[in-house]
């Protein structure tokens, strides 16, 4: 399974964490594979990471996050309209990728883009929320309650946890 990227949006519709795993098949001479670009690290050195789109991608990551949010927001409303408020949108697939969606009761939204052969990852996203987000971000005494600009989510434990978790997804 290939995981392309992972996003967390908070209840203010803001992207508080984003991470991209560059596909090994795409040629990426400029960026080393081991160094992912996150929203937080991009905020510190704004010029290099955010404005220059990653190799082969048409959009920068910040723009892509906005589009992803627009899509999941519309689809979620569409599904709720069609099937009543207790239905929830799970995932969609195009010819190139599959987007998995999980929303907590507190309107925290977890989104993962993978290749199309992946089964539904709702439980995996739920595990990320329970085992990583709650453990390392919510229970962190130094972390603020809200996370404007990704503040508080970018701690090392969480990043390492995400990285190792994504490698274990079958």
């Amino acid at each position: 399974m290939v995981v392309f990227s992972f996003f967390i949006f908070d209840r203010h519709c803001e992207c508080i964490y984003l991470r991209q795993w560059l596909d090994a098949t795409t040629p990426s001479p400029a960026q080393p594979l081991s160094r992912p670009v996150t929203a937080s690290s991009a905020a510190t050195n704004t010029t290099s990471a955010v404005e220059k789109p990653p190799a082969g991608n048409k959009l920068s990551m910040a723009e892509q996050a906005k589009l992803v949010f627009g899509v999941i927001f519309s689809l979620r409303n569409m599904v709720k309209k069609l099937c009543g408020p207790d239905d929830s949108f799970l995932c969609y697939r195009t010819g190139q990728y599959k987007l998995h969606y999980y929303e907590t009761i507190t309107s925290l939204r977890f989104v993962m883009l993978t290749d199309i052969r992946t089964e539904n990852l709702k439980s995996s996203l739920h595990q990320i929320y329970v085992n990583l987000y709650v453990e390392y971000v919510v229970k962190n005494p130094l972390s603020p309650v809200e996370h404007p600009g990704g503040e508080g989510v970018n701690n090392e434990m969480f990043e390492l946890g995400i990285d190792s978790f994504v490698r274990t997804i079958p």
Partner: protein
Amino acid sequence: MPADWDIWAVSDWVTKPGEWRNEVMEEGPEELSTGSRKRERKKRRQARETGFKCSALLCSEPRPRCCRWYHIVAMVVYAVLILNKAGGLIFQRDFNPGLQKLTSNDYLILAGTFHGVHAITSQISPTNETGASGLEVLESENFVMRCFQTLTGTKFLVFAEPRQPNLDVVVRRVYELYSDYVMKNPFYQIEMPIRSEGFERHLSAYIKPHQ
């Protein structure tokens, strides 16, 4: 079961009696114990005596009488929507209860929203391939939606039960009916709402008996 699970592939294992005996009955997988191999043989013998059954889900017709379309049994299609290339709703029909009843205005909004979302989903493709397609399958807890976009930009949306196999066959068949009974109708104005009795009749004749 994967979303695009192909039922034809499964029905292929029912072959001619000779082939069956040679390949499966006598050779058999090595790792099977004698007991389970006996049971397997008994099952196959019973199947041979009663005639070859079609192996498609829930289809109990003997093989020769089972037609291609008969495979799509126990299918619940909730609704079919057709969008023109500008995102306007030109056809909407409910077949089974399962989706909420919406007003026609709500359906128009929904069609417009989906048209926009479809365009964006092809933009955010993380791969490098050119000619990225937009949203094809949307899954939620209570339904699955299959979208098929023709080369001219018309979109066909089929809403069905979750884990419904063969939705791509259904949506292509709806497209066939559309080209036969709508596009070949000399009184149909292109991009306008579809009011064709023949199309509606054939569409419900296709979708209704397979339930």
